[in-house]
């Protein structure tokens, strides 16, 4: 999942391998930090910004637990270098609830018991909300196909499907 570089400001020069100043824009806040170029977006979020809601399940791009949005698009943060996100808007699970109110997808996950251990849940929710935005939740088969990058080992899948359908159907034809 590449980041759309066309909207990014040009980054010039060679940086690293030592720590370099980096500015990350996460959930509407700006974080000036220092990172080595080898740090993934996932590790930058978890280890440097203490935003641990984004989970590390495999660190190999196979499980989806680390799903975040970069400029609104679903991205596997374990396969994304943090430095490449400068100038882009990163959104994580911590930014989804507004003013203490759960997002309808979060509430639907709670109501439908769409998780057990909860470790894949932030990634599932980031994918599920994006799914509706992408227009990929029209049919049950669509939902199943386009959510398949997010593994739930507890197998809450039927309940996740129910949660997504509920939010989709409540969205005034949205």
């Amino acid at each position, binding site marked *: 999942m590449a980041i759309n570089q066309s909207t990014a400001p040009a980054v010039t020069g060679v940086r690293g391998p030592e720590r370099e100043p980096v500015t990350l824009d996460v959930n509407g806040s700006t974080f000036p930090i220092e990172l*080595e170029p*080898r*740090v993934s977006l996932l*590790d930058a979020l*978890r*280890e440097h910004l*203490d*935003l*641990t*809601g*984004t*989970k*590390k*399940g*495999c*660190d*190999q*791009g*196979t*499980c989806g*637990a680390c799903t975040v949005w970069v400029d609104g698009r679903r991205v596997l943060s374990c396969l994304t270098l943090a430095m490449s996100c400068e100038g882009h808007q990163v959104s*994580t*699970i*911590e930014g*989804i*609830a507004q003013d203490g109110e*759960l997002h309808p997808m*979060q*509430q639907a*996950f*709670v*109501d439908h*018991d769409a*998780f*057990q*251990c*909860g*470790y*894949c*849940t*932030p990634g599932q*929710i980031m994918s599920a909300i994006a799914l509706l935005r992408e227009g990929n939740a029209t049919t049950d088969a669509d*939902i*199943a*196909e386009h*959510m*398949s*990058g*997010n*593994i*739930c*080992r*507890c*197998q*809450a*899948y*039927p*309940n*996740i*499907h129910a949660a997504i359908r509920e939010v989709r159907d409540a969205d005034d034809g949205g």
Partner: protein
Amino acid sequence: MSPVLGKPVNRVDGPDKVTGTGRYCGEIVLPGLAYGLIVGADVAKGRVVSIDESAARAAGGVYGILTHRNTPKVANAPHLIPSLAGQPAPGESFFPMQDDVVHYWGQPVALVVADSLESAAHAAALLDITYEESPAVATIEDGRKSAYEAETLFGGLMPARDERGDVTAALAAAEVTVDASYRYAANHHNPLETSVTTAQWDGDRLTLWDSTMGVRASQLTVASLLGIPLSDVRVITHFVGGGFGSKAMVWPHVTLAAMAARHVGRPVRLTLTRPQSFTSNGHREEQEQRITLGAGRDGRLTAIRHQKLSITSSFDDWAEPATGVSTQIYGCDNYLGSHSLIKGNTMTPTFTRAPGESLGSFSLETAMDRLAYELGMDPVELRIMNHPPVDNHGNPWSSDGMADCLRRGAELIGWADRDPTPGVRQEGDNLIGTGVAGAGYPVAFMMPVQHARARIFNDGSVVIQTSAQEFGIGVTTSMSQVGADGLGVDMDVLRFEAGDTDLPNTTSAVGSMGATMQSSAVHNAARTLRNELIAHAVADDKSPLHGLSPSSVRVADGRMTSTLDPSISESYADMLQRNRLLDLEALGSWTPPPFTTPHGLLTFGAQFAEVAVDKDLGLVRVRRMAGVFAPGRVLNPKLARSQLLGGMLWGLGQALLEGNQIDRQSGRWALNNLGEYLVPVHADIPDIQVEFVEVEDDVVGPLGVKGVGEVGQVGAAAAIANAVFHATGRRMSELPMTAEVVMNGGGAG
């Protein structure tokens, strides 16, 4: 019983999970935290000849490197005992990095501790380790000649052989026999959170944030291996990202994290990488099974012989016990169950969801299906007819429900309209079939006395505590319900606290025993506190309840009320405040029935599946599943349904997707990631129904709760295989049933 018990309330920890605010054990922020990374052996058998650390140390950021040359010796040799027993529970009778010998591929040979994840990974890659390699035996095929029949399993806790009657004579005399052999690939748990331990020393005292299914087991094991007092080890775990058995035992990395933290003088977080999780916390072993049934023409079973062969480590006689259900779910006077082992170069296998019985039931339930076809009997009726009212010792079931589960499941799947003829229903390129299997999972009273504490403050708010762990089982929610019910308060004034060895002890939540033992202890604590509160009130001459018999006081909504006159009433809070009591607390305990209690102890269920099999490609799609279960009292049907549904879909994965093999050349697992070790994903999920059959059980605890963690998986793969037979006419004798297996006529048997 108050309305809160049995109510489908949402998870109380749901908001923490959907907002990402719940802290898992690898997310604890500590000043000066260092990052540990294990380096595993690159040979399956041999010796470490040399370790050159110079490049790794020069790479920068390295605080320390542990190898067999400088790792402290363990104070007590680890001895494998299941964590349910409440003793030190190392996953294998072995601790690595004590000498230079390599017993299995991936065995820890070094541990790098550095200032960041990246520095640790880089330094670990620069460690130059050379080995002297010896020929390894890591598969059944390579070790078959050295197989022996095990006497006991589980560190001597369980006999490996179970025999009654004369099975040889009964098979010879049987009017009908079925003989089937099976080959099962190894399975890996793969919880989404790999195991992680964060260790911090404060002088002689150690705190571990450990992703475990049993904080007490971690405490006991680490204290034993380090040789320090239990009182100096505190284990905390508030959220665990799944376990499925991989976190039921205490593996070497937990103690290594503590050793590393002491070595570098900093807190250390040690996380297993996904590939390491295939070689560091056990697995469901590669195995072969053979089952032989004898029956009369009337369908009555007269003989069952059930044999298992599997490979274990060089240090432990471990086999997941495959015959606990086949020896008792169907009545049969002549029975032999046995386990044979090969010692090889693997780590000790371990509990994996529905340990033993998921594959044991695959053998039994597909053989029962063969028998039904051999006899021309309906597979559902054959099972109901052979299900006895007593267990294999003649003891009545503590509660049953199996026949009702089978009948209800048959309704859900539309069994009445089923034409039993195999291979005759076609839709497009697909052959369609339906199948059934019975399910049972043992209730094992291995654990010691369980404790919980209930405390009420004088504003009426309540805290209930036990050391239980929340790894997705819903214990935080269901125990809040049990506490509210026992004390007679609303759930919203009550908080359930768990996941800390400083809290009253309960044993590891394993073997489907968590709900039974925790609910029993919590119930007894809440009831004890309630009785104390009532005793205070009726003895208090300022209370409107003064002088009443305690038995004529009922409690609800935080109020004590006379059963004779509802106008005589006062709240807990008023009573406490008037008596200048800031709070009142009670410890509750529950002593499990003896292991030899004179009752049959199984949780029963029934599984049904409908499949579509591509006749040209052999691809199996499960279209529908229906499971009906009788787990005694259901504390929260919403959560119990989720757990059973999860078990059924684990069965789907076991049936069609999940399998690993050790490469015979290198002794290494062929697959070590979630891209190749396939687990079910969204697109694999069928239409699925879960229902309960209500049964009362006054043996298994004060609330009559039996577990739901494993029974959902038992029989699920067998129902799918029986459906594949119904669709194609081919008997499946190998798992997973990949397209090749289906096209090759079913596999081994």
